[in-house]
């Protein structure tokens, strides 16, 4: 089942949270929805689940418009909201039962489903505890179990791993990976490693605009048009001298006397930088080849001025 976001705009008062974005998730994809805080990730998700209406545009789930058929869309999607709200005074199985009933699952099937979800999400030992007694990682599992109880075709997860410790992080990621085999999943995050660990495809959003929508490998390649080196000197260096080195495209100061030097692809400027320092009798105290990782691509994508956001 596919999820299509079509020319979606969402405005809160005067402020545009999401500005005319469109993308499509094909069946079976896991897509990371990446962006800094306040970029419009949660807003897009809230519109997709029918919680908020779009100002303009539409979201189609399996061909059904969220504006015209909200009940049908809600039946097809599983949603884990940001901060994972739960009824803390309920027992785990009681809570899952309640959510299941809201989806109209019959009691015999529901009992089976609840058992299945408890096992799948690793809650077997916690099922007879009240949710308030659970640690954050387990609560997150309950949130996931709740989103999965009616076997939705589309899974929308809003920051499913925020605030977890590193072990829980790995577990929840594995869980998401496991359950996503026959589902279309979109999850938002601002953690790069997560995207690397989970997704086939990344959509980067910044200030309400999509700045990248591509497969992970091509986004990683995108940065490889150049090589970046970070050099740190002792003493003062004239930045313009560095710019004159062979193969250097640009130089940016990152500290008092450290510089990020971007050079043409295939050129390793480190020997040049070393000779530069030696010639001027400078001490070179750091010289590191920076991998153009997702993190720095994220940084470039989300800090550059978005062209059409101003109009």
């Amino acid at each position, binding site marked *: 089942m596919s999820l299509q976001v079509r020319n979606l705009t969402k405005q809160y008062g005067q402020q545009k949270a999401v500005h005319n974005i469109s993308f499509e998730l094909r069946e079976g994809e896991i897509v990371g929805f990446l962006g800094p805080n306040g970029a419009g990730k949660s807003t897009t998700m*809230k519109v997709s*689940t*029918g*919680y*908020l*209406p779009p100002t303009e545009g539409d979201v189609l789930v399996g061909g059904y418009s969220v504006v015209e058929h909200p*009940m049908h869309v*809600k*039946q097809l*999607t599983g*949603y884990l*909201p940001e*901060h994972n*709200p*739960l*009824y*803390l*005074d*309920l027992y785990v199985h009681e809570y899952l039962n*309640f*959510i299941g*009933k*809201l*989806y*109209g699952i019959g009691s015999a099937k529901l009992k089976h489903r609840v058992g299945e979800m408890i096992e799948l999400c690793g809650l077997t030992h916690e099922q007879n505890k009240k949710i308030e007694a659970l640690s954050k990682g387990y609560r997150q599992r309950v949130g996931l179990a*709740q989103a999965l109880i009616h076997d939705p075709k589309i899974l929308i997860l809003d920051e499913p791993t925020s605030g977890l410790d590193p072990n829980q992080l790995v577990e929840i990621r594995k869980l998401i990976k496991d359950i996503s085999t026959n589902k279309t999943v979109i999850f938002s995050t601002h953690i790069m490693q997560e995207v690397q660990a989970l997704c086939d495809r990344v959509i980067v959003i910044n200030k309400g605009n999509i700045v990248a929508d591509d497969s992970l490998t091509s986004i990683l390649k995108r940065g490889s048009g150049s090589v970046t080196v970070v050099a740190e000197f002792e003493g003062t260096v004239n930045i313009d001298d560095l710019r004159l080195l062979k193969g250097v495209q640009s130089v940016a100061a990152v500290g008092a006397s450290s510089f990020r030097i971007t050079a043409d692809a295939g050129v390793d400027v480190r020997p040049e930088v070393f000779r530069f320092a030696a010639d001027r009798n400078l001490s070179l105290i750091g010289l590191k080849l920076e991998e153009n990782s997702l993190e720095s691509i994220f940084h470039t994508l989300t800090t550059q001025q978005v062209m059409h956001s101003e109009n």
Partner: protein
Amino acid sequence: MLQVLSKEFNSFLNSLIAYVVIGVFLTSMGLLVWVFPDTAVLDYGYADMDTLFSLGPYVFIFLIPAVTMKSFAEEKKAGTLELLMTKPLTDWNIILGKFLASFLLVLFALLPTVVYYFSIYTLGNPVGNIDTPGVVGSYIGLLLLGGVFCSIGILASSITTSQIVAFILAAFFCFILFSGFDSVAQLNLWSSQALLIKQLGVLYHYESLSRGLIDSRDVIYFLSVTFIILSISKLILGSRQW
């Protein structure tokens, strides 16, 4: 709607709320009707249940807002309202579920007081010397009044995330709607409109029912007030869509 109703009602039962509400209501009514000399029926000398029906609404003014104050305020604060609203439920399902759960609790609090009727019935001299139609009418009035108060409580809870604000607003509006209109009508300002203002309030219709004459106009008044107040809550919940 039924799922929300049963979940809400269960959460009343699983927390202390249900027991405290029922316990406090029955204790205070029991003391007022049987023990406190100013109001006790034993000292009064007449076999009637006026104490219950005239003071019951004032106890409700405090108890019902306490029952309803968390219904939406807490869900909004905890974010679980977003969860409910992304499930295949309409806003009416959620509102009616919560409303009926609190109404059911009021009904359960009121039910044991039926024992008072039988006690007074037997204590009367001659036995059975009690205005039965009046009691039946009063019970219907008190239940309908409970419904109005529940809807006010739900409304107050839907406009804020603070339970305390919800409680105070609900208690205030219950009081105004119950006896405020009646008192305002007594001001020497209105001349011929005084009755109209009086009829806007709950007390006028409540007293009319407690005379034992179940007038459809009074019943319709109560039901429509409840419906209007719940509709305003629906409007407020729907305002996220604007």
